[in-house]
């Protein structure tokens, strides 16, 4: 009997060998969509073209990762693939935007989304968001995600695109997305699906707001220079309760800030300091915005609770979920030795996902788990 969904995994580092593993697991499905997430050491183009050859009618997209996982596997150096049949997705279309070849990021996103609309013969503004959902895989090191999400909001204001930024196994050198035989180290792949079943989107971050608020007064790109009228480093350190020279990666990871919307934090994580007094964030923080310092709750119980909320929202256990889990959360899992507990938390139904260098849903964010759950 044909499968409706398959979450395949190979821990092998050799691409040809990994493909043998994947093909064996994918042999039972007639896929409409295949998403794959691979270590940056894999040949992503070979994976994409081989999977496309196996499923010529499917859209096949992928990216490199900071580690990849399914409900039964958790690796760094391997590859996972999620395949969805027509029982889950009526039809789908994908396109690649390459920012090093277009006039601008905006134009590249507009061209790619127009291509998706043409393939499906739809008007993106007219689609019912209950029936359509998008996935976006961004390259993870060039900092284009905010603009990409903003343009998506203009061209498809009612549709949800969710996803993550590609990783490179924490080498922080080069990440890539794959589509149509192309490897792009400065681009995004967009996939729009006409889903055949109800879906739910989860956003969980395992942080809660403290009463400490910070007003952002001066920003350049992702670097904040002034908070509450003070140099950003001093103001952030004071809010956290440490001296400026005690600001380390551990302090940053434990003390992100959040833009609160309807009681939920949208996390902005400090990641470094600049020699000229700025605090570099993993995503843009808007000038004039008021954010709350956040404190950690519990990554594993929050993940469990979020997935349970998703099940409740769907009215039953999902048949499959696509997970984009922040690389900072991956580090927290490693540092706090939570791998067994995290794997247990995501083991209750089929899932496929990867550790991402930033997460996307309406905007770019950090230290977050974004999930698409299908009934």
């Amino acid at each position, binding site marked *: 009997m044909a499968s409706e969904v398959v979450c395949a995994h190979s821990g092998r580092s050799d691409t040809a060998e990994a493909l043998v593993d994947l093909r064996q697991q994918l042999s039972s499905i007639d896929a409409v969509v295949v998403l794959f997430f691979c270590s940056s050491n894999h040949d992503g183009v070979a994976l994409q073209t081989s999977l496309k050859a196996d499923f010529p009618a499917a859209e096949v997209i992928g990216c490199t990762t900071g580690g990849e996982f399914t409900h039964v596997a958790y690796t760094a150096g391997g590859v996972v693939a999620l395949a969805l049949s027509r029982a889950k997705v009526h039809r789908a279309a994908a396109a690649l935007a390459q920012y090093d070849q277009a006039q601008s990021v905006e134009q590249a996103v507009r061209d790619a989304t127009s291509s998706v609309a043409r393939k499906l013969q739809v008007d993106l*503004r007219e689609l019912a968001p209950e029936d359509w959902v998008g996935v976006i895989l961004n390259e993870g090191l060039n900092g284009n995600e905010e603009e990409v999400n903003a343009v998506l909001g203009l061209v498809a204001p009612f549709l949800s695109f969710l996803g993550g930024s590609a990783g490179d196994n924490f080498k922080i050198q080069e990440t890539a997305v794959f589509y149509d035989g192309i490897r792009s180290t400065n681009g995004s792949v967009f996939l729009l699906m006409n889903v055949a079943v109800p879906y739910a989107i989860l956003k969980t971050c395992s942080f809660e707001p403290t009463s400490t608020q910070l007003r952002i007064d001066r920003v350049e790109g992702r670097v904040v220079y002034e908070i509450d009228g003070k140099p950003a480093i001093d103001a952030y350190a004071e809010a956290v309760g440490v001296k400026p020279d005690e600001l380390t990666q551990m302090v940053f990871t434990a003390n992100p800030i959040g833009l609160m919307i309807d009681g939920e934090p949208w996390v902005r994580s400090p990641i470094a300091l600049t020699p000229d007094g700025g605090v570099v964030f993993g995503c843009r923080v808007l000038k004039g915005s008021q954010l709350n310092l956040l404190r950690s709750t519990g990554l594993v119980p929050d993940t469990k609770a979020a997935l349970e909320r998703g099940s409740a929202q769907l009215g039953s256990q999902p048949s499959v979920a696509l997970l984009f889990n922040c690389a900072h959360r991956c580090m927290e899992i490693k540092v706090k030795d939570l791998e067994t507990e995290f794997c247990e938390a995501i083991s209750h139904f089929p899932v496929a996902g990867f550790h991402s260098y930033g997460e996307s849903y309406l905007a770019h964010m950090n230290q977050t788990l974004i999930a698409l759950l299908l009934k």
Partner: protein
Amino acid sequence: MLGRAQVEQLSAVREALLAELGGNTARLRFINTRLILSIGVDLFTTTLTEATDPNLAKKAFETLNQMGLLLPKKEVRRGK
């Protein structure tokens, strides 16, 4: 512009948008979240002061226009 006046302008934009969305408050909230995240404007805000950027309502209106919303005449586009 006084903060209170701008709050009233944003409120007017919100009401016009809600009307265009056929009273669909979930969709209004969704678009409002987009505005907060992309341009820092909350159509539901009540706390603006004299120190607030005086162009928030203008920014919101322009961004909504770029989304195909609140356009003049019958160019209005909305999701089904």
